[in-house]
């Protein structure tokens, strides 16, 4: 490297520092805090100088090595190798993963906390697979998926608390309700182009949340619904001391009572629900309607010319995706036994979309990896609660910048003419 280049990159770094000072100076450096009446400012110049210094140093390093390029190739090499492995050995990989998931609750290190995290990850995997039908297969960006999750959770909670029906009756009903809402929303808006559709679905998600907060008579407003019945093992409840004329799970199987029974049951429940979603998606991809979704994603005008009705085709994707969201919602309601509009904010939709997109749109394995990565990492950094979402948003930007098609980009058509591979 020549001397001129070094001076040049040094100047460039100083400019970066100046910009960083302008960025962090007011917002980080002058923290406002209320004391008594009115606001006061507490200067925090130390942190600002640290941040600015980091920016200058980082920029200088990047300039010196032009590290960006090497990093980029390293990153894409790594991920493409990885996606090649998972694709070649897709079947082995899937079987190993499922086997691991099945034995997971009985592994020696598995405790209550691990089970809770695993249930959460599986819930997101299920939501991700459900949304993958809409985003990955049909190519419709839905930023309001949480609305269907909410509809599922609330319909389960309302039906179960008013009529006292069992989980196994309420679950399909919740799915049907969510699918119904999907059709209701989808019918008018699915004619819109990609990014308009994204904003409208986002608006719909917010409308549902505002209604849940304000429709006090039915949803109990911001206080939410409490006392949602827990699921039973096909009619046998998980209670320490069962009511008269009832047997409890541990009595029926002659086990010592433990709260873990219910959690392990919930774990298997969500595992089965998620696998059903996956199986359904894999099967429907090979049916005419699944083919039509993928064709629509690739080229809408060509599809129209070939006689595919875009609105109806998109509507089925939307409704089926919504249905799985509804199932996941009713699982969420029964697990928590309490739901409130707080759980269904826009950020949930963003997380689910991030899982699908970061995993590589349309890739089922990618959803699993992205869920484990995003939820697992955020769980690990629980103590740094405040910085969690910054890291999360930053990861979304970085993955898009370096790998716009996601970790496992699997947008290969499921069928090719003449069966040629490349």
């Amino acid at each position: 490297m020549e001397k001129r280049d070094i001076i040049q990159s040094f100047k460039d770094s100083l400019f970066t520092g100046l910009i960083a000072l302008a960025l962090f100076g007011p917002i980080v450096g002058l923290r406002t805090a209320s004391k008594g009446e009115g606001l006061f400012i507490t200067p925090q110049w130390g942190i600002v100088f640290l941040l600015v210094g980091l920016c200058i140093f980082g920029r200088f390093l990047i300039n010196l090595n032009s590290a960006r390029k090497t990093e980029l190739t390293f990153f894409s090499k790594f991920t493409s190798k990885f996606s090649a492995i998972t694709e070649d050995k897709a079947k082995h990989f899937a079987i190993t993963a499922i086997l691991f998931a099945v034995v997971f609750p009985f592994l020696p290190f598995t405790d209550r906390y691990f089970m809770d995290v695993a249930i959460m990850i599986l819930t997101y995997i299920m939501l991700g697979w459900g949304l993958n039908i809409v985003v990955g297969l049909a190519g419709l960006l839905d930023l309001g998926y949480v609305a269907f999750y909410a509809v599922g959770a609330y319909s389960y909670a309302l039906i179960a608390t008013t009529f006292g029906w069992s989980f196994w009756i309420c679950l399909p009903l919740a799915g049907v309700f969510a699918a119904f809402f999907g059709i209701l929303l989808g019918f008018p808006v699915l004619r819109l182009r990609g990014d308009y559709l994204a904003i409208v679905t986002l608006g719909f998600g917010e409308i549902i949340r505002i209604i849940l907060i304000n429709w006090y008579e039915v949803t109990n407003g911001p206080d939410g619904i409490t006392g949602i019945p827990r699921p039973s093992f096909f009619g046998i409840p998980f209670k320490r001391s069962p009511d008269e004329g009832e047997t409890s799970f541990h009595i029926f199987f002659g086990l010592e009572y433990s709260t873990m029974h219910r959690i392990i049951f919930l774990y298997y429940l969500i595992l089965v629900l998620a696998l059903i979603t996956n199986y359904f998606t894999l099967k429907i991809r090979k049916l005419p309607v699944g083919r039509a979704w993928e064709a629509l994603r690739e080229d809408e005008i060509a599809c129209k010319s070939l006689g595919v009705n875009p609105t109806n085709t998109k509507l089925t994707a939307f409704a089926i995706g919504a249905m799985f969201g509804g199932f996941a919602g009713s699982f969420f309601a029964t697990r928590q036994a309490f739901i409130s509009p707080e759980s269904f904010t826009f950020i949930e939709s963003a997380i689910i979309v991030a899982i699908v997109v970061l995993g590589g749109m349309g890739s089922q394995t990618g959803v699993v990896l992205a869920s484990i990565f995003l939820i697992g990492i955020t769980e690990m950094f629980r103590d740094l609660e405040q910085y969690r979402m910054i890291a999360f948003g930053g990861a979304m930007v970085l993955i898009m910048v370096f790998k716009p098609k996601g970790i496992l980009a699997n947008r290969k058509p499921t069928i090719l003419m003449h069966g040629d591979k490349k």
Partner: protein
Amino acid sequence: MEYFIQQLVNGITLGSIYGLIAIGYTMVYGIIGMINFAHGDIFMIGAFVALISFIIFGLTGVALPIILLLVLLIAMLFTACYGWTVEKLAYKPLRGSFRLAPLISALGMSIVLQNYVQVAQGARVKPMQPLITGGLEFFKNSEFVVTVSYLQIFIVILTIILMGIFTYLITKTDLGRAQRACEQDRTMTALLGINVDRTISITFIIGSSLASVAGMMFVLYYGVIDFYIGFLAGIKAFTAAVLGGIGSLPGAMLGGLLIGLIETFWAGYVSLEYKDVAAFSVLIVVLIFFPTGFLGKPDIEKV
């Protein structure tokens, strides 16, 4: 009738704020065809910079008009830096990538900015004492006295001035011509010797400055801000841009006014709780019946 006039005045004030934010959306959409999801958060940052400068200048005891002018310039400068940086970091590397990539990246940026401000400034709401007080009263003899506060007059006049400058900038200067050329055909513009990257950067800078003015107005008008204001305001301003016809600058202002009026009238006559639902429903209805908005150009799909 008096109540109606009062709502009209409030609606126009709110509409000015939305209109200024909507210009940022519509300009960016016009030039690079993406929804800048982080624009609402840029507006929020502008509001925070304005609040901080108001507190600093409030201690010095300078005359009010000078404070307002200084805060305006400071907010525009610092917020423009944010707009510029966001574009450089999150959108520029994605130019020419597949369509949803910039949208996801913008979504990530929006999450980053929101949480960054939450960490840096705290999650609690920030109240500020009103700076501009008093107003004119009309219909004093009737039951309902209509008040037009000086603040409302200030907001509307400032919006009109900014719109004037902005329209001159776009229609009469070289910069504006370059921008309109980029909107039509970026490759051709580059061939004709115009620095497209620079033009796009300037678009972001102008959009962010206007959003920061809206942020300053928001602080003065509501007197309370938090890190979350950008989300709702952003969505409503986007609705305004779509309503006016996305890509059209007068359309953005018109859309802003309409959304402001719809929201205040809905809150005044129908129901306060559901005023946000009104804005979203308008968005859905508009997109279904006039996808190109009132002043937008029809969008022709080509194979």
